[in-house]
């Protein structure tokens, strides 16, 4: 229990520090080293490309994403919906990010087809999101055999294309 709390505290500190660095205009050598070290610690690949002005900021987002995912997996986040850490937007004049997200807005975003903005959605919503369009619905309902024949047809047509 104590270990879990310590890990949580450590993650929280790391998160705060990362967010701070994200808003910092010029990163120092120490800041950059911190990002590199944390990447190694969390086993996240980091390639510092030449002429890449935003590599470190991009990496901060990746790290924040990993930390958020850890929190979701550990059950530390109890919210129904969790946005990706890089999502910080203005919608209808309201600033929406994980701190301000409500279930109502989350559901509106999902209706707009923004499922990719979420790291966690409510179970029931997840099921709905898997079949958002009519065509997809029919595909799910269709028996397995038809799917197989579809694949076969596809392979046949592909072969035909290749022969041309």
């Amino acid at each position, binding site marked *: 229990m104590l270990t879990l709390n310590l890990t949580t505290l450590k993650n929280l500190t790391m998160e705060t520090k990362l967010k701070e660095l994200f808003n910092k*205009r010029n990163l120092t050598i120490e800041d950059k080293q911190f990002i590199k070290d944390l990447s190694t610690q969390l086993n996240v690949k980091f390639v510092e490309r030449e002429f890449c002005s935003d590599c470190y900021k991009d990496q901060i987002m990746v790290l924040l994403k990993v930390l958020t995912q850890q929190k979701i997996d550990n059950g530390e986040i109890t919210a129904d919906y969790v946005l990706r850490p890089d999502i910080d937007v203005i919608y209808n004049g309201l*600033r929406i990010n994980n701190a301000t997200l409500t279930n109502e807005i989350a559901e509106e975003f999902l209706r707009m087809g923004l499922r990719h903005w979420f790291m966690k959605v409510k179970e029931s919503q997840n099921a709905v999101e898997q079949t958002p369009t009519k065509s997809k619905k029919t595909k799910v309902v269709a028996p397995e055999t038809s799917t197989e024949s579809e694949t076969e047809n596809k392979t046949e047509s592909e072969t035909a294309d290749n022969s041309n």
Partner: protein
Amino acid sequence: MAFTPCSSLAGNIASDCTKPRIKGYESIGLIFRKKDVQSFIVDATNSRIIKNLTFPATPAKSVGIIYNPRQSPAHFNGTKTEFQLESNQFKKTVQFYYEGIGGTNSYNVVEPLKNINDYVIILERKDKRGDGTYQVFGWESGLTATAQVYDEETGYWLITMECEEPHSELTLFDTNYTTTKAKFEAFKALSY
């Protein structure tokens, strides 16, 4: 709260040697009226980035396609942005041709372009780097036709749409190029 000026230089003015700039636009652009946009989402830290647009279910057709497939003139040739010192704004010009003739086309396309001033045009650059690939014109103050020239020799209307906006460039960008492309394609499906 401490005072902070609008902006100051925060990047090098240098070419990216690994990703050289690819000039030009693709042949298909989108035009719609801002009033027809049902809702929009912009980035909270940079309002120049439009993350999402939604159009109402009815009318089903609220977006026009501008298709300029000819190689001469080049796609959307003459499209440019110029800073205007006096107004402290960026003057944006989008130029395209239209081969429609006759009364119907005159009523449906040519005249509305100069009668209304809330048009938004999205053009796709050949450069597919994500942020910047889908350039948005007229989102802030709206485009209107400032020149429409028909010449029987060329066989088309050369239409110039212009506006003046405070921000130098606005883009449609969500997550990456692929996601944004899917959005652009979905908007195309709403065309007349």
